[in-house]
């Protein structure tokens, strides 16, 4: 079971990122989020939602989903995203998604997505 993202519905509002940051830090911050919206290709209007799981980096791009094994291609995955997105690289150093296991209602990112782009797989 994991988080599933539909990037075609995503409006890049970052609510998921802030909700995840809150889950990690008990305050509002973006530094520890394990889900993030890449915003570095602003002029091209291209963004993806990247999720760090225990073993995988899940990259939900508009044209399709990509799953990369962390470690095996970890540096490559980080480098690819960080070319134009400075906050992507530290994602590999953050705690993986725990599906907000300490919360009765489940993952906060899902609950705060205003356009229902996030669901449970």
């Amino acid at each position, binding site marked *: 079971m994991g988080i599933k993202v539909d990037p*075609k519905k995503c*409006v*890049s*509002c*970052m*609510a998921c990122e*802030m*909700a995840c940051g*809150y889950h990690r*830090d*008990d*305050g*509002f*911050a*973006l*530094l520890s989020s394990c889900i993030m919206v890449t*915003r*570095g*290709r*602003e*002029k*091209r*209007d*291209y963004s993806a939602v990247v999720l760090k799981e225990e073993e995988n980096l899940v990259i939900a*791009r*508009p*044209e399709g989903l990509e799953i990369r094994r962390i470690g095996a291609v970890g540096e490559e995955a980080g480098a690819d995203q960080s070319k*134009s*997105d*400075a*906050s992507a690289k530290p994602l590999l150093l953050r705690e993986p998604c725990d599906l907000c296991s300490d919360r009765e209602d489940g993952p*906060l990112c899902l*609950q*705060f997505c*205003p*356009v*229902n782009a996030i669901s449970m797989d």
Partner: protein
Amino acid sequence: MEYLSTNKIAIIDLATSKITDQEVDEDLVRERIGGVGITMALYEQYQSEDPIVLGTGLLTGTLAPASALGMITAKSPLTGKVCHAPLTLYAGLELKYSGFDYLVIKGSSKKPVYLWIHDGVADISDAKDVWGKDVWASTDTIRELMGDSLIQVLAIGKAGESESDFAQVCINYWASGDRWGFGKLFGRKKLKLVALRGMSLLEVLDPEGFVKQCKELLSTLKAVAFADKKGIEEIPAAIGEEDIQKWLAPLVHRHQSCFNTPFPTNTFVFLDEDPKLLKESEKEEPGFLITDVYGLLGFKKLGLSAADACALLRECARYGIDAVAVAELSQKAGKKKPDEIKKSFSGLKGALENIGKGRFSPWSPPKPIFANFGGSQDAQWWERKQAVAYIFGIHPIFALMSPELSEEKLIELANLGTGLGFTSEILDKVIADISK
């Protein structure tokens, strides 16, 4: 100020290059709440030094729905009144997380400079690498210099540098809600841009109570009238203007929200690329993010095609000039061809009829959007809706779509977040004070 705040104000003197930091006094917050309540207080404190005050609302950058808003408060060269312009997209968020709730920029520099506001540090830097460049090139240059593509840039273009009355402070590459000519003030101060980036943490007094309330509010909002709508092209028909959806539809690539805003008020159009393209375009600059409904409508009313109108909006943003003023003055001058309109940017002059009458930017439409607020929605109603949005840091267009984001709910959130005991009487007093 311990909660929902980075607890810092930077006083930046461009004349002496001195920067001093102040704490955000909790008593000031108790009295003025935040946002324009405090930017106005700071403006009045430094008004003899012609300040530009940047600020964020009390709830900006939180999980409160639509908490995207930052603001610029300054004396408008167009109206001569102290006015407020919205900072949307991710600019309000980034200002809050840069480590400063407020920036007071006073005095004038002798040579072009820019401000680099990051992680609780404010620096004044020589702008020789960006002065003379358009808004797009300036944003690219700063991001490349700092090696960070997420820096939010409030920049002027050639319109601001030449102190045009219609110069706009743009956000990254896009038009902003600065309809007051604040770009001229930047130019007069030789301030090319303000670059923002930060990784702060905002503490919350009752985090679980605050988040629960945010969740309930969002849940209500998701069920209402705008839920099946998207994009700036939905707005004109909803406010009694011409329906432009069919006109714009062939160009629409994607809809984009400002930070944590449930309705995407921005529409990205592809002009030099297939709008249906899903993968990343190989073109560097395939289109434009439309953020200003009146600029778009203004060019449509000139009889331009959607492609020509959007291309002109892009040229306005590069030049850093208010598209609404360009459209109105082109109409008056009988100019209807894109090339001749573009040529008129330099030296554009004239009196505008379509100008803000109050203190809040007319970038926000003057009436409810999609929603039924009940009662009368006159100019006074609009001013109050905008005042509340600018105090708490709520997207001012979204505020016109969401009766659910009531004053009571926002006060409740502010109290859960800070414990400062805000009441509707305090809010009334702040609104009365900023309206004087």
